[in-house]
């Protein structure tokens, strides 16, 4: 999720917003493992917008973590499937921690994680009646995350940052593909993500 480490200007930020989710210097630099560069950008005009977008991503990861908790607590999953769900949830926790680290660097307040009951209502988990429902539900969330992360890749001038966004999208794609397989569905068509 992210943007280039080149100079940060308003016009450049506008260009980023034309392509999808936008993050700017500090967040990008931190996520790319460049803390010194992150510090350089922190406090800039674009930092507030970075924090806003990162918080949106964090909210997405919080939702994913809680969705897997709800799935696990549904007692609808067979043991092997449950183990996979827990692994996927761990991946989302890794994403969460990376995003929290970015927000800390920016001096921004992280978005609130809602209660499990709130997520249950928003995601209508009461409609899940069997394992296939849960898998389909999770697959939908993962596909949405893939598309959200892919949507930001064209924004990058720095190929390393585009690669990082691709790594995040890849995690979600792996999740989606495995869930899709578990549902017994055909393999996704070529070029079916990000459109």
């Amino acid at each position, binding site marked *: 999720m992210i943007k280039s480490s080149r100079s940060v200007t308003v016009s450049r930020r506008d260009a980023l*917003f034309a392509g999808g989710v936008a993050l700017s210097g500090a967040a990008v630099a931190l996520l790319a493992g460049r803390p010194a560069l992150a510090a350089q950008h922190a406090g800039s005009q674009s930092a507030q917008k970075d924090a806003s977008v990162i918080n*949106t991503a964090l909210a997405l990861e919080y939702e994913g973590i809680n969705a897997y908790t709800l799935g696990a607590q549904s007692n609808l999953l067979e043991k092997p499937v449950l183990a996979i769900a827990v692994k996927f949830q761990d991946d989302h926790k890794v994403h969460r921690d990376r995003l929290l680290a970015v927000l800390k660097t920016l001096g921004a307040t992280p978005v609130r994680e809602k209660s499990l009951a709130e997520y249950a209502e928003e995601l209508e988990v009461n409609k899940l009646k069997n394992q296939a429902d849960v898998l389909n539900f999770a697959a939908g969330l993962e596909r949405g995350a893939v598309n959200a992360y892919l949507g930001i890749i064209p924004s990058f001038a720095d190929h390393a940052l585009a690669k990082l966004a691709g790594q995040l999208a890849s995690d979600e794609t792996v999740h989606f593909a495995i869930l899709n397989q578990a549902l017994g569905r055909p393999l996704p068509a070529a070029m079916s993500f990000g459109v």
Partner: protein
Amino acid sequence: MRRAPFRVAAFCAITGALTMAHGAVRGGDAQRGEALYDSRCTACHSLDHSRIGPAHRGVFGRRAGRVAGFDYSPALRRSHVVWNAKSLDRWLTNPELFIPGQKMGYSVPDAQDRTDIVAFLGSPDAR
């Protein structure tokens, strides 16, 4: 009978005017828009529940920042935007340019995609 064509034309004009007054979209493919909505928007939004973003059902004709219980940015709450085909198109084109300080960082660059998504949001399925 001789007046039928006139009546048809008048009916079309009136219904067309009413449709545009509510901001529905001419030329948009709501069915394709629904597929695009499902693919691109549902990571954060749904029709009936506010999640990362606010619920969308009934968005046409609603003032921006007015879904009860959703934590909007001050910029959106302060805006006087009313959602219709034109304002939604501007929003999806570049949310930050349209309402600086808002929180949504996702845009839809392709004009036809925007038109179709907006057509879905204005369709009976999303009202």
